[in-house]
């Protein structure tokens, strides 16, 4: 169906941007105004996306062509995939903001205004990245996102954070450079920046430039997705960041950078080219498999809860890379769904970790022994999300794993099914180890008491934890859309 044009598409990402500017104003008036403003912006984006959702679900994407750059193919496009991620981004960001309300004063009291401002930039970067319909817009918003991410990591007042941020910055800059080069090459080859346009040209006849572009982009996105062997920036960055930011990073940033890759493979290069001509995918499959195992094993060996979760992120992005590079419909469906579900689960886990830090000041898993007696609700939320992480039915993680493994079989690579299964087992070991410590460890004494953390922190974690289960059941309604979408891509 013909896409329809609407300015509302832009408004989705203008809301947080505008709010970022307003924040500088309000933040100076009263620091306590920051969070409501930011939250209002995110909710506005969320509701705007919701307004747009009806048509998209019926198969009619929204587009908007800003300015007079039509010749270059500049375009914003709210298709189904973008819609899903906009909902996820805006929703998750809102929850993290609520969480930040009590957490941030606790951690970085004087720099709240800056924190919220950059946070909103980050959100708008994420949103823009999702709805970009051309390569340049995509790249720009990716950079917006990346730059805000660097800053948000460095914003906390510890030397380690700066070092991590720097490491991240360099790796991010290198990867952005690589992707930019790829974009430039593609522009050179196709004469347009519009994804659909490029796709048409590449399909017509892939040439050396496109090959090189794909190689460069693959490298770039692997760095963004922290895949072995260019993963090393991630654990430090995610664990050093202030916890809500860790949640954003792990839940959205790392994955959305990676989501771009899916966009590129399917919208820019097309699967035919990727499989038939470029032969890149088997390398990517191996990288994904390696990341799954490496991340899982390192997570098991880790005692720092946030580091453990960071390694788990590497492992789970490995699942997505593997799922995408299999180039089978089920694999892609699984990977895209995994983006959603792992976003929720990881965010929840990081938020819970933040509650433990806030309450007990500890990040060590060993120290969590028996904590469920003192913070039962947090521990319960953690457990809910851990189930999804492992892929226990009927959580959303199960649905994702289902399609991912199905994808390996569709692609006639059952070996990778084994890798995924082992990855899930590793996930079970590291996730349930924590659950085990929390609920049944020996050092428990005293009577059960309810959590004494602020509800503003507890609620987002609980909502996300429950969300992983709700999403698992709601998958019935979401999956057909994704599958239809994927089918249109792969065929």
């Amino acid at each position, binding site marked *: 169906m013909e896409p329809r044009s609407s300015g509302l598409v832009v408004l989705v990402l203008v809301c947080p941007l505008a709010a970022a*500017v307003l924040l500088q104003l309000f933040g100076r008036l009263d620091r306590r105004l920051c969070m409501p403003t930011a939250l209002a912006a995110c909710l506005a984006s969320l509701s705007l996306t919701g307004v747009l959702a009806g048509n998209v679900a019926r198969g009619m994407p929204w587009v908007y062509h800003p300015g007079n750059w039509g010749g270059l193919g500049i375009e914003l496009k709210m298709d189904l995939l973008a819609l899903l991620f906009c909902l996820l981004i805006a929703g998750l960001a809102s929850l993290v903001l609520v969480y930040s309300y009590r957490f941030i004063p606790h951690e970085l009291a004087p720099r709240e205004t800056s924190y919220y401002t950059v946070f909103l930039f980050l959100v708008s970067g994420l949103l823009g990245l999702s709805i970009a319909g051309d390569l340049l817009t995509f790249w720009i918003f990716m950079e917006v996102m990346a730059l805000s991410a660097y800053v948000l990591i460095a914003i906390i007042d510890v030397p380690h954070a700066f*070092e991590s941020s720097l*490491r991240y910055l360099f790796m991010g800059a290198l990867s952005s450079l690589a992707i930019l080069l790829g974009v430039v090459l593609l522009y050179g080859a196709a004469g347009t920046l519009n994804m659909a346009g490029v796709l048409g040209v590449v399909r017509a006849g892939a040439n050396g430039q496109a090959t090189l572009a794909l190689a460069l982009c693959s490298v770039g996105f692997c760095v963004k997705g922290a895949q072995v062997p260019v993963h090393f920036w991630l654990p430090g960055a995610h664990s050093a960041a202030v916890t809500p930011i860790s949640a954003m990073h792990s839940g959205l940033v790392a994955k959305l950078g990676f989501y771009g890759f899916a966009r590129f493979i399917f919208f820019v290069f097309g699967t035919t080219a990727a499989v038939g001509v470029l032969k890149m995918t088997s390398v990517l499959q191996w990288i994904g498999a390696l990341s799954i195992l490496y991340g899982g094993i390192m997570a098991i060996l880790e005692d720092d809860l946030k580091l453990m979760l960071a390694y788990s992120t590497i492992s789970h992005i490995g699942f997505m890379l593997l799922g995408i590079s299999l180039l089978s419909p089920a694999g892609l469906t699984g990977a895209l769904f995994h983006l959603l579900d792992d976003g929720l689960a990881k965010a929840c886990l990081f938020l819970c970790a933040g509650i433990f830090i806030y309450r007990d000041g500890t990040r060590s898993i060993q120290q969590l022994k028996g904590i469920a007696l003192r913070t039962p609700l947090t521990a319960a939320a953690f457990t809910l999300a851990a189930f999804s992480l492992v892929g226990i039915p009927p959580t959303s993680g199960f649905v994702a794993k289902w399609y991912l493994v199905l994808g390996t079989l569709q692609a006639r690579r059952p070996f990778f099914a084994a890798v995924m299964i082992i990855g899930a087992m590793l996930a079970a070991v590291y996730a349930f180890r924590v659950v085990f410590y929390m609920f049944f460890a020996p050092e428990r004494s005293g009577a059960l008491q309810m959590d004494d953390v602020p509800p503003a922190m507890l609620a987002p974690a609980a909502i996300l934890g429950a969300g992983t289960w709700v999403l698992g059941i709601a998958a019935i309604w979401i999956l057909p859309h994704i599958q239809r979408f994927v089918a249109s891509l792969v065929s």
Partner: protein
Amino acid sequence: MLLAASEAVEHAAATPVHSVLPLLLVALPLAGALFAAAAGKREGLRNLLAAFFSLATLGLAIVLAARVLGGSTLSFDFGVFISLPGVFAFRLEVDGLGAVFALLASIAWAAAMIHLADYSWHEERRTRLYFWMLLSEAMTLGVFLAPDFFTLYVFFELMGLAGYMLVVHNQTAQARAAATKYIYLTVMGGLSLLGAIFLYFYYAGTLGFTPVAGSAYLEAPFRIAAIVLFLAGFGVKAGMVPLHVWLPDAHPAAPSPASAILSGVMIKTGVYGIIRVVMAFLASAPATEAAPAVSRGGEAAAHGAAAVHAAGGISHSVQALGFAIIWLGILTMFVGMALALFQSDIKRTLAYSSVSQMGYILLGIGCAGYLGAEGAMGLSGAIYHVLNHGLFKACLFLAAGSILLRAHELNMFKLGGLWRRMPLTTIFWCIAALGIMGVPLFNGFVSKTLLHDAILESGHLAGQAGNLGSPGWFSLVEWIFLITSGGTICYILKTTWYTFFRRPETEREPATTERAPASFNAAHREEQVEHASHHVASEAPRWMVVAVGALAAGVLFLGLFPGLILSRLVTPAQAGFAGLEGNVSGFSVYTLENVKQILLPLAFGVGLLLFMAGLRLWQKRLPAYLGADYWYRRAGAAFFSGLRAGSRGMEWLRPRLGEAWVLAAAGFQRAAAWSSAAGGGMNGAIVSGWQAFMRSTEAVSAPPAQARGLVMARGAGALPGRVRLQMRKLVEMTVQGSRRLAVAVKSGRYADFISTFHWDLGIGVVGISFLLAIMLIILIK
């Protein structure tokens, strides 16, 4: 239903008559057990009830036997209540053989229960003893009333378990050890039996005692397995060598009335099963191909042609089975006898004697199988001997119980001269002893004569072409038979002499005591020593004497009226067997020829007795490794030490596996650490590169380093001064613009603002302000 099918084929002659008698026969002792248990502490009532129920059972058994031996088959069907459609239906049915065995069982139990009325004061936990005695009676009767191997197996197993309770009853260390051995062998036997029944069911097409005509029972490749398992299963119970090891321990360990029924009846269930198995084989052998008819010695030549004809596969199988059983029987009788010779404990002697006597019975069954269709002689001998042994062994054990009660001693070398004190018991003992010795006019003579003749018949048959073995083998069998009979006479005489007639040797220091006396409680020990040394024994209590006497009367009766028994009891018992031709009802026992047969064993036995007594060899012990028990123990110990070694090995291995895992994990960790160090190295290079770059810019512009407490600030602080100035200006402009915007919003002029707002412009503005904001943050910090 398979069962129905088998019946239709095989029992055409005797259609079962529905009757409640078989059920009652099982239910009565069962009810008795429950009543006795309920009566509990009211001991008189309990004893009375037990005696009443066992006597009522006896009466019922007589009625039942009368009807069945009159030619009808009685059956009781439970209907669907206890059945598994297509597999089994639980029924009770009595034919001749079952009726005879049931009759014997009721007699023995009635006697034992009467004996128990007085004997039980010697025991503790009396109610328990009563309960299990009666329960085991019900189960044993069930075995004999079973119409098929399945039902038989059910009762057989339950009886085995009930037997455990009898053996273990005293709960002394000795009794417990005996009971443990008993139960393991019982279970093993039960399992082999179950395996055999599976095979039988599958290949014979039925669970009934008569295979479906034309079934593959004998051709099947599993027939050897089936035979071996059947023989092992029933042989354990029957005390067949080499599976007899439990028996000499278990029977003495039980209270004497229990020993009487254990030895008198319960081991006969094994024999009963073996008879059924052999007859099942025989029934499936076509009559025309059965072994040639050889009724008595000397007529064999006339049937030579038939013998050649009989060399076919099927009859050969029956014959092979018979031949095997003959040798098992011979082995059993000889080993039992040899071991009985060297015992000093009366009950142990009797127990080994039971082993030996079971050998006689097996021999008879073996001959029946060997002779095939003409095996009535062997079978009759076996059945007759079953009856005989049931009576005299029960009698002897009960008498031993009387001795124990009065003399508190069972070591025959410590006893002596009891005939003065216990005259009636002595007389009854002697009657039973003469029975077991096979003296004419006593019952053992009859059955031994039958068995001897069966051996001779078999020897003749072996002389013909196409049959297994040779006459030489059978003359060996005959010699062993005679020697065993002699040995039997010897140990019985020895026991009788030392126990009853020898002068007591109280003044002498007892020689090496071989075994601790059986079944004494610690409390009795003092008393027992005193009693044993002073021989204050008196005649046994009334009911004990009655019980022993009744059985002794039975011994006499069976010895005096063999013709009656053979025609009314033994021959009808075989009536139902397909494939068995001829009978022995006209057999005359007391001929001169037959009586002469006893002389040789008698001479041998007495001579051996005198020889051994003269040399004082009686109290020597045989080395342990001569007994099968020793080797079983060794094998068991080896098995368990193997298990222990295995588990030690696992214990050794487990921590090492754990260590290997830990090592592997450590190795991985090291590798991981190395890889992240490599990453860190790269990072370090990046950081130091950045710092070098900063230093170089510092070297160019060299502004004063501003310490802001942040590492990061060093980066910002290192920017050239002019740039920083420009940035601040930009920031100020932005802030001013924002203020203006705010003022506009406040003053309500935002409508214009909105109306003129162009999205493109908006993006541009926002984009710029975004880039500025980034700088702003860096600077503000």
